[in-house]
């Protein structure tokens, strides 16, 4: 049974257009699922819906978000927050704004362990040291006393990864965790996330627009277009030959080093038309 199961989730702007259209996806325990799509396809919104941090302007029209078998949307807010806090964590996109600038690194990692999960301070402090070691930060004791601005972007992303794994969540939502980083750092961070994921056996919902990243880290993926899942498949099957023409076009659009000019091609117009027709068809039954 899958740990996270999103069923027919529909989200729309209050009194406005639909953002997510009957999205269904599953993440099994220990599985890494990629979530790809163009900008504005709604991939981050799925992550936010799962984490309970959807912007105020959006509303969930229908659907279920089953976490370990219980529908989060049916729980009262306090219980929902508790469940999410205990089981799910976030690796945010931008390491520069994801750490509180006025507080020391150590406290930012240990605070939620102590305040919310009820750890003792000394346990939490020891845990932070172990975690920083796991994400290969040298001189961890000193870094824990520093402020975020004293560290580089790559270092901060490592800390955020360590922080996400701190409470041993069963699921981590990674919202484009490498997008804001330098390409050379990206590779290290990606390898690190994979290493941590394997060590802790955490399920990962990996939101990205980079198919190269997907091929390195994911076991399965969902392709999103205009808030609709157009393909849901295993990683070998996808890179072997995607079934949906839009996925095929996305794959074909990935630039290749061997042919930088010819390989950079946009998604063909007729494919867009077809996938848009599917979206419209899905909307036809929507009141």
């Amino acid at each position, binding site marked *: 049974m899958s740990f996270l199961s999103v069923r027919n989730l529909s989200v729309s702007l209050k009194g406005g257009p639909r953002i997510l259209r009957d999205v269904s996806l599953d993440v099994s325990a220990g599985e890494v699922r990629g979530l790809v799509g163009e900008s504005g396809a709604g991939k981050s919104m799925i992550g936010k819906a799962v*984490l*309970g*941090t959807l912007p*105020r302007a959006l509303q969930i029209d229908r659907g279920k978000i089953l976490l370990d078998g219980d529908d989060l949307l049916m729980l009262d807010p306090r219980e929902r*927050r*508790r469940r*999410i*806090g*205990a089981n*799910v*964590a*976030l690796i*945010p*996109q*931008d390491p520069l*704004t*994801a*750490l*509180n*600038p*006025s*507080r*020391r690194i*150590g*406290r*930012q990692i*240990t*605070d*939620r362990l102590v*305040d*919310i999960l009820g750890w003792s301070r000394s346990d939490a*402090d*020891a845990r*932070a*040291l172990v975690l920083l070691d796991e994400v290969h930060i040298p001189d*961890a*004791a000193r870094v*824990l*006393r520093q*402020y975020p*601005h004293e560290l580089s972007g790559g270092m901060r992303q490592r800390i*955020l990864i360590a*922080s996400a794994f701190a*409470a041993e969540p069963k699921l981590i939502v990674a919202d484009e965790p490498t997008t804001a980083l330098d390409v050379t750092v990206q590779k290290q961070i990606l390898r690190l996330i994979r290493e941590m994921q394997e060590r802790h056996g955490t399920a990962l919902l990996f939101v990205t627009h980079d198919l190269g990243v997907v091929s390195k880290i994911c076991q399965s993926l969902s392709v999103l277009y205009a808030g609709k899942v157009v393909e849901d498949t295993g990683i070998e099957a996808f890179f072997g030959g995607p079934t949906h023409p839009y996925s095929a076009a996305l794959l074909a659009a990935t630039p290749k080093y061997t042919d930088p000019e010819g390989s950079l091609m946009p998604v063909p117009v007729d494919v867009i038309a077809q996938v848009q027709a599917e979206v419209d068809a899905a909307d036809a039954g929507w009141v």
Partner: protein
Amino acid sequence: MSEPKMSETPTMADVRGMVRRRIGPRLWLPGLWLTLLVIGAVFAPWIAPQDPLAQDLFTSRLPPFWMDGAEPGYLLGSDSLGRDVLSRMLYGARIALIVAVVAGTLTCLIGATLGLIAGFYRGWPDMIISRLIDIWMAFPPVLFAILLIAVIGTGLTSIIIAIVVIDWTRFARVVRAEAMTQGAMDYVASAQVAGRSRFSTMLTEILPNVLPTIVALLTLEMGIAVIVEAILSFVNLSISTDSPTWGGMISEGRISIHQAWWVLVFPLIALFLTVLSLSQLGEGLRDHFDPVLR
């Protein structure tokens, strides 16, 4: 590996860094003036050379000590009723400081709290508070103050109430904007995901980042409070005439400016230096508190 030490209390290295970091004239010059002022105000009954209320027509309009005709014991001269200017200034400093500290702090507490709630919670609390701010700011402040005093009567408490009622919007507006920016940051989302309540997030994540701004505004507000008190004294709406205030002295000195300019000029200088010191102190403190700037 050494014992983990992650307390927020400064370590030795931090303390050394703080000492090495130049405090700068921006902090110590205003600090010096304000310290002198506080000492003068607190010990006024002991250091004041004369009774600030004692009138004596034989000693009226004495010039300050470096001019001809000055009398010992009247260092900064006397006014037309023969009252010692220095003594009156020292007692006036008491009123000025009480108003600055009490009115400043109360304004800060009320304004910053409302601003923080509006900026972080958004939704209907923000609607109500923001509309309130808009309505409030449409009133001309001095007129509003005079009106208010006319209704609730004069006196120290009235002045403080007037300042708080009029000026809370200054804090609310700035803090709201700042809280909104901070609220959009990813670390707030992370705290929410971790299961922190909204209220606790506001206090632990948002407040520390807004604090440097609040401190800067607070000292600025103290300066403004001193000025407002002086304005109200000037139009005779402050404390009763038998307790000396800087504004009252300026107002009285205005009449005899050609015969005894010192009655007007010395309180004016004190007022000017105090307000300037407070605003400079605010800037300096903000730089000092901000972990990114320092």
